[in-house]
């Protein structure tokens, strides 16, 4: 396969466009088309425009596609609509990549800069005049959700911590993702404590960014470099053991997006992807085999809204968190039923797309407020920030509930790293 930011490397996705029967199912489900006329919809921009593209852009409304992947998911014919669009967007933006898109897609850099000065960084992000300046100069919307920097990184916590149990089940690799390292430290810590509690020896190889934000912004060269490095780093851990992650979208990058969107087919990547699991998927798999200690799960009386992120749904595993949470006595899970929260990685941060993102997320925000305005559950970091920002609810990863049910802490109380 060729590695250019045009259609050639995407032979398979391109071949799939002939399977489009114009049934319009993708159009009925596209959350962006629903709220704005600026995007002419997945069918036009995807399989239809692709026929004319030959590496050139024929329809600039493509930039308004959020890459949520809903179209690919709902297509009964297996057309890779979202993948086609992502490749075409990279080609379209190649010669004039906005500075803003280059900054926001470098999560590791943001984390490295913010962590040492977390309180200051957080204060600046909450300081309206600074946000207005950022909107004017960089193009990040003044009201967009921003991560909260933490004083410690996950990695430094992990080095200092002592496992609570002696391993009985062998080794497991934990993949935390950039957000888990710098911003959502609490989630990563709780995941490790749960895995150790049920008897795993958790190994955390050094790991960089998966390149997902770069990919979704169309910066493919840098994204490929990132994901290749990461695949190598994960492979440096113990061979053949499961790689388990709380960063659902980053896991998706390793499992399929790097290959399907950017044409990366290195053996290391494919091998790492073949043993990567979302943590709820992994734990539910244990439960289904009768290998998850269910009797130890303590009662938590609560009703919460759970939202399955687009990037998780796109991996074809269903919504394992729903079944997993229901294993906890007393927990009642209401699925949001909403398509997308509107953040779509970095889409909803952008000044020209902020309103679209908010409109996309509105049905979800309403549902969260209706079910439990205090607390909601979602698997990916940026979606949690978006839901928090829009509803004021605390939004936690499903693992926070399992952690509490095993008596290891409280779902609503941060375990470590907090400012």
């Amino acid at each position, binding site marked *: 396969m060729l590695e250019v930011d045009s259609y050639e490397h995407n032979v398979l996705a391109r071949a799939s466009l002939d399977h489009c029967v114009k*049934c*319009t199912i993708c159009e009925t489900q596209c959350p962006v088309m629903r709220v704005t*006329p600026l995007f002419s919809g997945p069918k036009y921009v995807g399989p239809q425009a692709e026929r004319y593209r030959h590496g050139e852009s024929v329809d600039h409304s493509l930039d308004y596609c959020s890459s949520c992947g809903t179209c690919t998911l709902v297509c009964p014919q297996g057309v890779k609509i979202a993948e086609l669009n992502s490749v075409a967007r990279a080609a379209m933006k190649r010669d004039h990549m906005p500075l803003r898109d280059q900054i926001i897609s470098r999560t590791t850099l943001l984390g490295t800069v913010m962590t040492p000065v977390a309180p200051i960084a957080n204060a600046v992000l909450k300081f309206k005049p600074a946000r207005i300046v950022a909107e004017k100069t960089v193009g990040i919307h003044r009201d967009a959700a921003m991560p909260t920097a933490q004083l410690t990184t996950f990695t430094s916590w992990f080095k200092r911590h002592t496992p609570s149990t002696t391993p009985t089940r062998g080794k497991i690799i934990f993949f935390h993702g950039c957000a888990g390292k710098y911003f959502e430290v609490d989630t990563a810590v709780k995941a490790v404590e749960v895995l150790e509690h049920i008897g795993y020896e958790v190994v955390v190889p050094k790991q960089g960014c998966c390149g997902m934000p770069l990919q979704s912004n169309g910066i493919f060269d840098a994204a490929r470099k990132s994901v290749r490095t990461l695949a190598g780093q994960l492979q440096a851990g113990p061979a053949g053991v499961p790689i388990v992650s709380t960063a659902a979208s980053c896991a998706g990058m390793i499992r399929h997006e790097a290959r399907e969107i950017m044409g990366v087919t290195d053996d290391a990547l494919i091998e790492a*992807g073949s*043993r990567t699991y979302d943590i709820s998927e992994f734990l539910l798999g244990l439960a289904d085999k009768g290998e998850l200690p269910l009797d130890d799960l303590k009662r938590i009386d609560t009703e919460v809204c759970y939202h399955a992120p687009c990037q998780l749904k796109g991996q*074809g595993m*269903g919504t394992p968190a729903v079944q997993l949470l229901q294993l906890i006595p007393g927990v009642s899970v209401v*699925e949001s039923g909403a398509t997308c929260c509107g953040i779509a990685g970095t889409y909803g941060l952008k000044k020209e797309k902020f309103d679209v993102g908010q409109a996309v997320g509105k049905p979800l925000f309403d549902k969260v407020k209706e079910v439990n305005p205090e607390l909601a559950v979602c698997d990916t970091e940026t979606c949690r920030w978006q839901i928090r920002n829009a509803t004021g609810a605390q939004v936690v990863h499903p693992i926070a509930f399992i952690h509490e049910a095993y008596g290891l802490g409280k779902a609503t109380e941060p375990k470590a790293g907090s400012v």
Partner: protein
Amino acid sequence: MARIVVIGAGFSGLAAALRLRQLNHEVTLVAKGVGGLQLSQGTVDILGYAPEWVQAPFKSFAAFIEANPDHPYATIGTQPVKRGLTWLSDLLPGLVVGDMEKNVCLPTPVGAMRPTALYQPSMASGVLTKGKSYAIVGFNQLKDFSPEFCAANLTRTPLPTGGSVTATAYRIDLEVAPGEADSSALRYARALDDRPEFRTRLADAVKTVIGPEDIVGLPACLGLDDPTIHIDLAQAIGRPVFEIPLLPPGVPGMRINEALMRALRKAGARLVLGSFITGFEASAGSIVSVTVQQAGHDRELPADIVVYAPGGFESGALTLDSAGKISERTFDLPLTGTNAADLVTGDYWHDQALFKVGVRTDSTMRALGPDGAPVYGNLYAVGSILSGATRWAEKSGEGIALGSAFAAVNAIGGGK
């Protein structure tokens, strides 16, 4: 309680999955994409032509089965179809009305007259009735519906049961957003759901243009989440109002699809949407697991029972290669025909035997091999994959889908 995997999210898969879940089984529904419901009219056909216009579907069953011994209804029988229809009507009273013993005549968007048994409350006033007059109103910005075409055909066509109707076409301007010149029915439906003032705007515009006709027909776009908008409109306009189903995306079909999906979620079925089933493992004549295509690595999903509801040619479950060979994609099930060349005639209007190709089953819906024995003891085939019917010509697709789902459920029995 059995672990049941249902494959397919069309009418038959959704009905089977929900019913099995209600009967306390552990149900996982796997489907690559949304099923055919929202491409349909959102009505329930049982038997419309045999080949003449059918007035009472079940009264015609015996003769129809005798004339078509290979038809799915011959294996399903009457009872499962009736049970499925009753179950659906009880489940979705706000979306399904009508008398299963009696077909009605509903207008299509081109003004043809179509037999169907159960329909949505929003279509009830559109049951074409001898001597009545209809105002057919189109929107200039909704290109999928020509009121002139519809009205002229309705007026010139005699009713299948005798007599005729008169219809007059009207047009209104109704922009969903300022300057929007080409909107889908779904755009209208969502605007009517979300914006009460848009309902008023529609009612006022209709009131201004129509003449003294008895009843008002509108394109089917009267709300997706709220199926009662037709009642508000009828009140505001002062006449009965009904919807005429359009081309896909069909709003009435989407209503049923979403209602069934919501019910499945609520009932606690596991849903795996967006994934193909690509293979399976069998042992001692039974399927033991099916392979779910996932990102990075496939998953073997253990199953005590598999209900296979993958649709037919349209959904890709039946495939035709460039040499004209027909095959079934997932389990390589034996088909009633394998060579397309023998099954297609050059006459467009002639019955095409190709479309009757599919899987044969016993009365419990287990897929049969050439020897007449079940291929796998626990594999049930339902819906459009079944051989022997030309669904769109007979108007039998939904009855087959529901009936076969209920025949399978009946054979599987209750959980606990």
